[in-house]
């Protein structure tokens, strides 16, 4: 049976349509496998090869990959949740109630979205501290660290804007506490708060603004910065290995060597 399936797959891969989409061709040679990465618009963000040592669990704890995984789950469950949700008062709360009692698997969908969101915030923090303690922020990777800090802020904002959407007491007062802080900003405090909420207090306008930020603006920003973040890993010489520990004058040599390797 598996043999038969294999032959079907092979036949499919030989068709003209398949070949027009995937030009790397079939085969398991190193060249084919390198092309599979290089000739794919998404995968080409990654390098074609990776140090074996960096694939062990010990090296990274897979925290970056897992963070991306939670983001995928959040996008899928988020789109499904959008089908049942109106960002208006008081309909929003009724919709969340419906998710709980009326929609098939609605409760599961909301649970998965919420627990994944908390997990993502936790994983982003864990990833940051892990990268720091390994020293992977050091040159030439300093800019990717900055991109990572931006991604941390985007993640916090994503979670924070999503917090308001159920429009229950928990949501309302958490956002009220947060937005009160923004009015403490010197000089522009009240203006910042007004811009954020679309009014002087958390109301229907605030819900709509948070909804737009949560479902459109921030996810787009996240995708953009994640792309840069992953592409920079390749450009900065791959996942950090401890051989380029500073203080042994190995850093500039390794960086230059990696730059040369990258260009060839």
């Amino acid at each position, binding site marked *: 049976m598996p043999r038969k399936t294999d032959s079907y797959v092979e036949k499919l891969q030989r068709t003209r349509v398949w070949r027009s989409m995937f030009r790397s061709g079939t085969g398991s040679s190193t060249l084919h496998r390198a092309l599979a990465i290089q000739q794919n618009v998404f995968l080409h963000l990654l390098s074609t090869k*990776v140090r074996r040592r960096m694939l062990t669990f010990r090296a990274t704890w897979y925290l970056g990959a*897992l963070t991306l995984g939670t983001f995928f789950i959040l996008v899928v469950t988020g789109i499904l949740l959008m089908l049942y949700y109106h960002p208006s008062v008081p309909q929003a709360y009724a919709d969340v109630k419906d998710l709980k009692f009326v929609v098939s698997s609605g409760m599961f969908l909301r*649970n998965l979205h919420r627990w994944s969101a908390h997990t993502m915030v936790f994983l982003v923090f864990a990833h940051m501290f892990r990268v720091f303690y390994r020293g992977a922020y050091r040159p030439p990777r300093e800019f990717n660290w900055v991109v990572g800090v931006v991604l941390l802020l985007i993640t916090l904002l994503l979670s924070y804007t999503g917090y308001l959407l159920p*429009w229950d007491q928990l949501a309302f007062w958490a956002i009220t506490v947060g937005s009160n802080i923004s*009015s403490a*900003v*010197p000089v522009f405090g009240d203006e910042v708060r007004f811009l954020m909420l679309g009014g002087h207090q958390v109301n229907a306008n605030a819900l709509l603004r948070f909804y737009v930020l949560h479902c459109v603006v921030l996810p787009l920003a996240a995708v953009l910065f994640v792309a840069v973040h992953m592409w920079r890993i390749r450009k900065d010489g791959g996942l950090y290995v401890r051989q380029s520990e500073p203080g042994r004058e*190995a850093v500039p040599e390794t960086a230059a060597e990696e730059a040369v390797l990258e260009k060839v």
Partner: protein
Amino acid sequence: MTEPKDFTAGIGSDIKKSQKRVLFVTRRTSAQVKVADEEQVQTYPEGLLRVVLAIELLAIALVLISLFFNAPLEGMADPTTTPNPAKAPWYFLGLQEMLHYFPPVVAGVLIPTVLVVALVVIPYFNVNVEADGVFVKNRKRRLTIFYIGAGALSVFLWFFQVYVALGPTLIIAGLMFVAAFSSARSPHAFRRYLESRAVSWWIMSWFLFELIVLTVVGTFFRGPGWSWVWPWRG
């Protein structure tokens, strides 16, 4: 006449493993490979397979959690009824805890701004890039800075009665003090470990420690009016 070349081009001795390496040796020195080329594997399929597997395991775990634990949903938002205490999401509870002690412009604006700026600039300061133990170089000067810095911070936190943040500060300062008077040849592995920690390690560990303590306190130990409660009592 052409100038004599000031470099020689050659092929690395590890040509079989990594076909791409070309060596240019400048000046009249001999080539020396300090770091041997690492064993590499193809990203597709080896690397991607593992990443997909890791993500799938996490997805299974999250699905199981979602089957057994429901997301909270309280009554509809009511601007006229304030719950006591009104808490921010858990990752902001550290800041809300600070809000209890300091005016909003300090706890809500100054501290987060300083934190973000501090995180961004980490890799751009050489003091954060060095890997030597904090008191190895410039020992006298650094000891003075440590005494003044840790002392001032502790007095400041004590003055404003921020005991929640004072605790972790004193513990980290105590460990740094042990590090200052430990040597690389100490018989205790733990003291050798402390001695070899760089200054950036200490600052980040202090930050991480504070973050955990403040978040846990804000989540579990704060009740009505932000008063101290024991989570196991009622």
